């Protein structure tokens, strides 16, 4: 199973492999062929249509297969443009994607001020959409479009797959679709499920709904957190309240597994999203930890955002510092979770957690 990662998490050799594979496909005319294919179908139902996401999933899958001809282990990394929003980001380094600008005559601008890159809260609000139709429309127009224009040059044209960052951008869009699918398992695709994808008469959206079946997965981190002073107990939600319990059943494991996402109020911090309740986050309210659906207001975002700091009782572990009450930390007390402040040794231990592999 190929693992598609955030480009920031690539090892040096993974970066080298990706760059080498890009040079290889460019040399053999594959990049131009993909750009031409995209350009010729641009207004033939691959944009502003329910096929936008499945068509591009198939397109990336086919491009990745071409890359694998050079390096069988290579996967397309993604650029999360709601976080990496500066031309000074390592994405654009001359040893990485920056090198293609002059080499491939891409005329990138990087930093267009006529558009704004999507914000993390726009992304999270989009993840909450209840139907595929409302989801893809907003994802395409409010999240997908502006990075094309922000990069500029070839990336802003109908031949945008001529710029390798196209694939990294669409890899992120595909990841957002995969994430939404995971949290909306019973929501139907809607119109066109069995209609052929433009240019590939034997392929339909039904063929690409399951990205695992295409042989790849994403690195969206799932994690569980074990108490430092009660190591058999894990941070979890139960009846929409934060608790610390032992974990035995399948339901316990899901309640104790969180998606660690960029902080809703500060992308440098984190928010903890439930894996079994769509778009629900752990937040504090009245200094009690609760699991609540994302509301979009600023107070919710701040209450659900924590800085990961060195554990207060053990620096190899983690403590969660509130961003809007920075003297307060997430702690357990009587096996319930609170936001609290203190300095004694019991407080420090109660506020320290060990991140573990996800229990679910």
């Amino acid at each position: 199973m190929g693992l598609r990662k955030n480009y920031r998490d690539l090892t040096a050799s993974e970066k080298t492999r990706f760059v080498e594979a890009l040079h290889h496909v460019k040399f053999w005319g594959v990049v131009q062929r993909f750009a031409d294919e995209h350009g010729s179908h641009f207004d033939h139902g691959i944009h502003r249509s329910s096929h936008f996401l499945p068509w591009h999933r198939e397109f990336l899958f086919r491009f990745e297969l071409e890359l694998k001809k050079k390096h069988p282990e290579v996967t397309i990394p993604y650029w999360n443009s709601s976080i990496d929003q500066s031309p000074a980001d390592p994405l654009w380094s001359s040893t990485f994607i920056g090198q293609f600008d002059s080499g491939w005559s891409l005329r990138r601008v990087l930093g267009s001020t006529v558009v704004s890159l999507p914000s993390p809260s726009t992304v999270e609000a989009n993840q909450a959409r209840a139907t595929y139709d409302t989801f893809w429309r907003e994802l395409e127009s409010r999240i997908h479009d502006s990075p094309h224009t922000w990069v500029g040059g070839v990336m802003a044209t109908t031949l945008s797959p001529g710029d390798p960052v196209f694939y990294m951008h669409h890899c992120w869009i595909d990841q957002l679709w995969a994430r939404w699918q995971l949290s909306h398992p019973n929501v139907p695709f809607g119109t066109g499920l069995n209609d052929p994808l433009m240019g590939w008469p034997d392929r339909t959206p039904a063929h690409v709904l399951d990205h695992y079946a295409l042989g790849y997965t994403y690195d969206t981190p799932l994690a569980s957190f074990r108490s430092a002073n009660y190591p058999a107990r894990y941070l979890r939600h139960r009846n929409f309240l934060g608790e610390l319990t032992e974990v035995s059943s399948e339901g316990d494991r899901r309640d104790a597994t969180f998606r660690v996402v960029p902080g809703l109020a500060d992308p440098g911090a984190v928010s903890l999203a439930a894996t079994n309740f769509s778009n629900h986050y752990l937040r504090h309210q009245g200094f009690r930890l609760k699991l609540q659906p994302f509301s979009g207001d600023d107070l919710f975002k701040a209450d659900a955002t924590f800085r990961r700091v060195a554990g207060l009782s053990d620096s190899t572990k983690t403590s969660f510092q509130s961003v809007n009450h920075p003297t307060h930390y997430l702690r357990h007390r009587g096996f319930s979770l609170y936001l609290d402040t203190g300095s004694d040794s019991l407080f420090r231990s109660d506020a320290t957690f060990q991140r573990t592999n996800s229990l679910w």
Partner: protein
Amino acid sequence: MKPERQTYRDHRIEVRVPEVTSERERAADSAEEQPKPDLLIDDTPIPYGQLPDGSYYLQDYAYDSRRDLMDLARGYLDHRADAAEILADRKRRGGG
């Protein structure tokens, strides 16, 4: 679509509707199969298309589709001016 002309940021934008000359074209016209208007900026034709939702896009500015072709042309000129400024500023500061 009606012919339209305006100057924006010192550029001439024109939506030019081809004249209907033959009987066949007149018939097509009445059947609402009107010939596609041309978009020109400073007398240079600008390739464009229309997406399934009816909005227009430019081949060189494809991700800011708009319902109004003239408005799209103005957006394109804003984008070009912005890009030129960013690149000039970067050059002044010694970057690539």
